[in-house]
């Protein structure tokens, strides 16, 4: 997983503000209680499983859906009741929705013609937009004569050529194969940085969201669970659901035994020794400690004086090449996942099946979740 943290920008005016938005389809509530502010120049992702309401939220920004209550502001102006064709946003559809009866140049020029851009200026701007996505040589092609990746570029050019305030991307890379998708992720980010337009992307792929976004809103069941920069969401999730959805997580459920000076002593089910973690919760509160698999140190010998130490037996090893994932079963039956980087070419791994191992982690590398 790439955790490239992009430099924090200065605080800029909001491009999109969502205020108390709720959307119901008949009896079903698609999204509820949404408050969100996306600033100019951000690459913002709405991340969540399918059916979580992320696409509905995006479509309300585009104007294809009207909120049941609440308001949508774009560049400071209330756009809640404004039809899509009068909004300063452009959407890149999941299917790209290129007009099949028009060639690439006409597809890109379509939006400019609607805006009554002077005829003489249109070819120049179309060429600029196509060059930006490296599709300058394809102007005369029809959509069906191009590959998925090429269509995706044309769809992006068609959005950018209108110089909108915000570009909305609905699962922009889901139709591409894995290799092309990874390459395109970086291209898309580079283009976004070059043009400086706010991008809002909907995706169910957490790696994609992590790689590309300045900030991510994690959604589930029609609500936003957490908004933050990629590393914040990964390292400091605020709920078990977010921790579980982003990356892999080990949870130790239990009860707070002691809470002092921002440090909590925790009695976890199935773990003999008390666990220590940074946090602040009332004594007796039920909670969970979350530790990422790569934060756990694994060894055959018990670490001297280490807190947060548990021991168990290796029951499963998944070799992924760059890393191996070890499944360690504690005496209580609880299985803990540990990731170890395969740093050496060694044929024999240090730890193998049925080995008794000791696991430990630094208190600062675990998160206390209510």
């Amino acid at each position, binding site marked *: 997983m790439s955790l490239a943290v992009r430099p924090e920008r200065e605080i800029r005016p909001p491009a999109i503000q969502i205020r108390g938005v709720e959307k119901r389809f008949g009896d079903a509530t698609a999204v509820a209680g949404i408050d969100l502010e996306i600033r100019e120049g951000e690459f913002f992702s709405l991340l969540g499983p399918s059916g979580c309401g992320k696409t509905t939220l995006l479509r309300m920004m*585009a*104007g*294809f859906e009207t909120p049941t209550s609440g308001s949508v502001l774009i560049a400071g102006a209330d756009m809640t009741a404004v*039809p*899509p*064709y*009068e909004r300063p*946003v*452009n*959407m890149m*559809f999941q*299917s790209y*929705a*290129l*007009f*099949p*009866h028009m060639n690439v140049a006409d597809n890109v020029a*379509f*939006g400019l013609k*609607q*805006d009554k851009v002077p005829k003489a200026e249109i070819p120049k701007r179309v060429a600029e937009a196509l060059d930006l996505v490296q599709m300058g040589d394809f102007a005369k092609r*029809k959509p*069906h*004569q191009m590959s998925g990746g090429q269509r995706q570029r044309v769809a992006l050019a*068609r959005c950018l050529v*209108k110089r909108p305030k915000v570009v909305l991307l609905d699962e922009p890379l889901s139709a591409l194969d894995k290799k092309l998708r990874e390459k395109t992720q970086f291209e898309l980010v580079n283009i976004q940085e070059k043009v400086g337009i706010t991008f809002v992307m909907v995706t169910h792929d957490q790696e994609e969201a992590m790689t590309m976004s300045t900030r991510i809103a994690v959604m589930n069941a029609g609500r936003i669970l957490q908004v933050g920069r990629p590393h914040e969401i990964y390292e400091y999730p605020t709920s078990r659901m977010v921790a579980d959805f982003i990356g892999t997580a080990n949870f130790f459920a239990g009860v707070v035994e002691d809470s002092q000076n921002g440090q909590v002593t925790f009695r976890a089910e199935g773990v003999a020794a008390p666990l220590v973690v940074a946090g602040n919760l009332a004594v007796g509160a039920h909670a969970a400690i979350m530790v990422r698999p790569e934060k756990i140190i694994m060894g055959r010998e018990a670490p001297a004086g280490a807190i947060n130490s548990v021991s168990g037996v290796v029951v499963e090893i998944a070799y992924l090449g760059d890393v191996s994932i070890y499944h360690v079963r504690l005496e209580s039956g609880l299985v803990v996942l540990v990731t170890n980087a395969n740093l050496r070419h060694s044929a024999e791994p240090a730890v193998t099946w049925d080995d008794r191992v000791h696991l430990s982690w630094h208190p600062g590398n675990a998160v206390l979740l209510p």
Partner: protein
Amino acid sequence: MRVGGLRRDWGRRLVLAVPYLWLLVFFLAPLLIVGKISFSESRIGIPPYEPLLDWAEEGFAIIRATLQNYVLLFQDDLYVEAYVQSLTIAGISTLLCLLIGYPMALGIARAPEKSRGPLLLLVIVPFWTSFLIRVYSWMTILRDEGVLNHALMGLGLIDEPLVILNTDWAVYIGIVYSYLPFMVLPLYATLEKLDPTLLEAAADLGAKPIRAFWSVTLPLSLPGIVAGSLLVFVPAVGEYVIPNLLGGGDTQMLGKALWDVFAQTRDWPSAAALAVAMLVALVIPIALFQRIQTRMEEEGER
């Protein structure tokens, strides 16, 4: 295995042979007979034409073919006029069907999925009644003392009854009414397939609904327009019942002219020549049309 394969092969041939046989017996053979008669000379008797081949005494066959019947078609203004009028009436009717049928098809295609079936059924329901009965009903509706005039006078919209029956107006009404489903169904088929995200994309790029219709919906439904227009235009050109029952004396269409020559004048060779000429004059432009259509469809599919 081999035997089974062979048997299957024969089964396939048999299935294919049935429609071919049908076309041979009920389409090609009659057409050839009509073609033969069109080159014969007329006479009084049964059948009312001279045989094409005469067996001379020495066993020689004498072919007595004549182009006279075809020449007559072009010399007689009546036929040329009927041809022009047939094309005009069929053309205008097709256009009217398109103007009425397109919004209908679009409405059904955009209706909620549940109500599309019932709406389509409503389009087809008239077919369950005899065509002749439906045309006769129009006579009672359009008559001077008919339902329509009664209603209009009752509402005080007109003082004198409108003369509609036995005019071209009645023919247009009859043809548009009868052939509308043939326009609606193919149009619906193409419009229903149209990807709605294309219209969203158009709106997103700044096109108001009307503009989106002209630049996206209409061009992409062209195959349906062509198919529907052909299905209305072709039978309308040769329409006989409607102009005969609803039209007036000056409504002279090919179908009616054909019947007059065939049944009243009993000049079978001339009638046959007229039928063949009509076929040729229609088949060529339609074949061209259909080639354009298949090419467009292939382009759309790729």
